[in-house]
Structure formats: C-alpha cells, structure tokens
C-alpha cells in the first residue's frame, strides 16, 4: 500500500507541476462550454426567412409579425409565386419560406382550420429541423394567444421542441459538451501521461520495480479520476448558473453516471497508451479516434436519425452516444434508473472490455 501511495503522490506532483496541462484541464471545459453554449445558441438568431403570404389578411399579418418580432428570424422579403422559392434558397440568404394559404383568417375562424407550409433548406438538416421547431413553436403560441375560437384544431403545428419548451439551445449542448470534454480529458491526459514515461524511459524502471503492472495502471489513473470528476462538477455548475440548465432527476444518479463515464474514458486512455509509443501518437489517437467521432457522430451536434445507416451503426460503438442519452434523461427529463439502465449496462460493458484488453496487451508487452 505504501508503495502504491508513493506512486500516486508522484502522479499528483507531475500534474500540479505542469501548469500548462493544469490550465488545459480546467480552462478547456469552461471555454468550450461557453463557446458551444453561446455560439450555438446565439447562432440561432437572425435566420433569414421569406414569407409567401397569399392571404394578406388580418390574422396572417399578425402571424408574420409574431415571427419577426421573436428575434430568431430576419425578414428576407416577400415571395409572390412558387417559382421564386428555389432561387431564394439558392441565394443562401433564405433558410426557410413560410407559405400561408389564401383566406387564412376566414378559414381559421370559419372552418376552425387553416394551413401554413414551412419549406426549409435542408442542405443543413440540423438547422432545418431547428427552424421547423422554432417556427412551429411560434405558430402554436400565436394560436393560443391570438385565436380564441380555435379550440379544437386551429393551425396544426406538426413539430414541437419536446423537453425544451423555451426553445433553449444550450440545454441540448450541455450534455454533449460534458460527454466530449470528459472523454477528451480523461483519455487524452492518461494516454499522454503513460506514453511520456515510455518516451523518457522511466516506464522501464517502473516495470523492473516490484510494483505490479496493475498497480502502475491504477496509480496512473487515480489522480485523473479525481480531476475529471471535479471537472464534471465545474461544468454542471457552470451550465446551471450561466445557462440555467436544470437537473430534473436525481443528483446522485447523475454523479454515479458521471463516475461510470469517467472510468470508461480513462480505460480508453489506458488502451490508447498500450497502442501508442509516443505522446504525439497518443494525442492524435485521442483527437481523431475520439474527438472527431464524438463531435460528428454521437448525436451531439448532428442528429443520429438523419445519418446514413452505416454511420448510425458506427455511432453505436461510441460511448458518448449512450452517455448523452443518460445525461439528457436525468438532467432534462428527470428520468430515474428505470429509463437508463440499458445505456448504463452498455457503458459498463465497454469499460470491462477496454480494461480487459489493456491488461492483456500490457502483459504481452511484458512477456515478449
């Protein structure tokens, strides 16, 4: 035990003496969260849309006013016939066109049902679906506030932003950012710290010492469990106080899930360090094998449902994909363990897998 403690102490000394790493460790999460939170939320402002108002009556003009006074959309002018729409999209300035049917007010009040059509430029599918969500939200609200007679059907809003009634973009980004940052920090820093010892030559000395390989790995990982956990809490506090993201479900369950995910990320870091022999290779592995797929494929930015099926299959092996689901369930929906046990089991399975092959690889290295 004494041997192990001397070793862990040394690991902490490495971390606290390396100011740059420490800065990355605590600066990066804060910066990333703020960047993602603000840029992506603020990004959904001033989206150019055009209106093809065929009714030009009282209610239709009120609706158009509502849309442009929301702050999300910029008026890019009127469209008078259908053929104009595609040229509007091609200009790139118009991301969506709202088509309102003739005699909108009459239909709405008379028949109790009126039709609008939202056409979006789906070359950016994510933005398109967000626009549909925002517009539907506004139309729905317009109907509630300004169309007292439409009790039954009114304007039928096809989409709605479930679990995010206030249309807050940051809510969606916080789970993704937590998953991304914890994965990166845990995996990147442990793999770098192990490969650094290989590069400098101290790993040999450790292996010749009576410290067992499993203890060397455990000693390497221990400080990062604490640091990554502290980091996770910093991100949660920041998202609560800066973006007002709630934690609807059990806090303890959330922290347990955090711990599980950190352990998994660390075991991936150890696995990478058995593959890489230099710090650079470890870094590239972490960036290309973890960061890119996490950003692109885990559902963090681009919805998984919109991907071609080979990529959907690929996303199944990404730990963040499952962790994001858990986070959203606990934080935004307030779900308990009954809803997330299957994702939890998948993460546990992945952890066991990575630890097992790391130990195996480590042994092979020792014996050859």
């Amino acid at each position, binding site marked *: 035990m004494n041997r192990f403690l*001397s070793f862990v102490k040394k690991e902490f000394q490495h971390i606290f*003496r390396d100011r740059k790493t420490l800065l990355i460790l605590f600066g990066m999460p804060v910066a990333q969260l703020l960047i993602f939170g603000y840029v992506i939320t603020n990004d959904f402002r001033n989206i150019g849309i055009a209106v093809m108002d065929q009714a030009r009556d009282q209610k239709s003009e009120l609706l158009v006013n509502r849309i442009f006074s929301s702050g999300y959309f910029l008026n890019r002018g009127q469209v008078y016939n259908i053929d104009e729409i595609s040229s509007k999209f091609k200009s790139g300035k118009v991301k969506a066109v709202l088509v309102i049917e003739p005699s909108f007010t009459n239909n709405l009040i008379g028949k109790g049902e009126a039709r609008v059509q939202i056409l979006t430029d789906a070359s950016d599918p994510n933005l398109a679906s967000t626009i549909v969500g925002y517009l539907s939200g506004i139309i729905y609200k317009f109907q509630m506030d300004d169309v007292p007679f439409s009790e039954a059907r009114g304007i039928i809003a096809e989409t709605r932003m479930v679990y995010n009634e206030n249309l807050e973009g940051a809510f969606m980004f916080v789970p993704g950012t937590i998953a991304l940052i914890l994965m990166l920090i845990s995996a990147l820093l442990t793999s770098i710290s192990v490969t650094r010892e290989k590069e*400098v030559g*101290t790993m*040999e*000395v*450790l292996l010749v*010492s*009576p*410290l067992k390989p499993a203890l060397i790995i455990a000693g390497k990982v221990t400080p990062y469990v604490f640091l990554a956990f502290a980091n996770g809490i910093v991100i949660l506090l920041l998202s609560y106080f800066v973006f007002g993201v709630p934690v609807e479900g059990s806090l303890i369950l959330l922290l347990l899930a955090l711990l599980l995910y950190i352990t998994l990320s660390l075991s991936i870091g150890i696995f990478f360090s058995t593959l890489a022999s230099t710090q650079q290779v470890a870094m590239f592995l972490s960036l290309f094998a973890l960061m890119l797929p996490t950003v692109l494929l885990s559902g963090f930015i681009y919805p998984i449902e919109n991907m071609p099926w080979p990529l959907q299959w690929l996303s199944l092996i990404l730990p963040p994909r499952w962790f994001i689901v858990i986070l959203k369930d606990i934080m935004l929906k307030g779900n308990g363990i009954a809803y997330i046990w299957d994702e939890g089991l998948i993460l546990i399975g992945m952890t066991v897998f990575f630890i097992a092959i790391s130990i195996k690889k480590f042994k092979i290295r020792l014996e050859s």
Partner: protein
Amino acid sequence: MESDRIIIEVKDLVKKFGWFVANDQLCFNVYQGEVFGFLGANGAGKTTAIRILCGLSKPTSGRVIVAGFDAFSQPEKIKKVIGYMSQRFSLYDDLTVYENIRLFGGIYGLTRSEIKKRSEELLNRLEIPDLRDRLIGSIPLGWKQKLAFSIAVLHKPKIVFLDEPTGGVDPITRRQFWELIYEASKQGITIFVTTHYMDEAEYCDRICILAEGKVKALGKPDQLKKTFNAETIDDVFYQIAREDKQT
C-alpha cells in the same frame, strides 16, 4: 573479489521471437560482488538477455536463476532484490532530487525513516546536500547519472543492472561514475553492466562478449587479451566481429 558464490546462473538460455533467435544457448555465471561486463554490438541480444534477468521477459527455454530465484516462475521475487538503471533517464525531471529518492525508496518498500536516513547518506556521499530540493531537470547530466545510480542501489539490492549507464557523459564524470560502481561492489553488490566503451570493459572483473545471440568470449579482460593475442579489449571485440562476418 571472486568468491565461489554464484549469484546469476544462466544455462542454455534460449529466447525466440517467432522464428528469430535472440538468445542462442547462452551459458555464463556471475559471482557475487564482481563487476560483470556484458558487451556486444547492437542487436547481439544484450537487451533481450537483460530483460530476462530482470524478470521482465520469460525465457523460451533454459535455466536462469537470479539471486536464488527462477526467472520462469519467480520474476516478482527477482524484482525485489535487484536494482536497475537504464541508458535513458531513470529519474523524473519534474520532481526534486529528494522527491525522486523518496519515490523510489517508497516503491521498493523502504520505511519513511529509512528513506530519510539513506537519502541524507546518499547526498553527503555525493557531496551535494545543497541540491536536495532542486528539480532533477535543472542539474547537470553528470550529476543525474550519479544520482540515478545511487538511487538504483538505495534499497541495497543484491545485484544492480546498468544498461549503458555512461552514455553521453564526459570522461571525467565516467571516471567518477566508475568509482561509485567500485564502491558498491566493495559493499557486496554485484554489478552487471553493459557498455559501448571498450576502455570501460577493462575496468570489469570479468566480461562476456555476445554476438549473434551467442556467447563468443567469457573471462577476465587480461585472459581474453592473451587468448585472442590482442592489445586491448577493443581488438578482441573487432576480431570477434570480423569472425562473425566471415561465417
């Protein structure tokens, strides 16, 4: 110096990596307290043999006993009674001299008071008590090597393995380094050293020259010079290397 007590016994040691034979029927003994030089060109099988002797790698076949323990079945016991210093750095640059001593003392299971006592002795012997709290990275290379050696023998191992310990060091420091080696050897610690410098080979009590995974020469430096009718160990080494190419 040469007692009859064998501390490392190697008989018919074979190590294969697939079809490649790294160590081919090695046979040699190392006696307690001697300075045993292990020479050979790169790729001669030195490193493979050292890894086996240190318990890092298992032999394919043969008998290997280190300090009374079998390299096949008891590598963990071997690790406790040996010290090791490699050609590359064995100390941590971002820790101070004392922190390095404390770390390795701790890893080898010394108690806190033992570590304190021995580190004081060590710093006084090297005449550097004022470097105690300096980062290793900030002290000159020569001192680092001497410190690395002193830390490798801090837990008073029976054998210390030195893998090209004096690489990149100036002649004066090498000389001082060898004084440390002799001092440790006088205390009964067996020294197993590999080197590229042939003048250093002359400092050893006995040497073993390896080529193509086989033992080509084994004995006291003077004996070997006589056998090969050579002026220096350097000449002996070249004769062996030449033979190698002819076959």
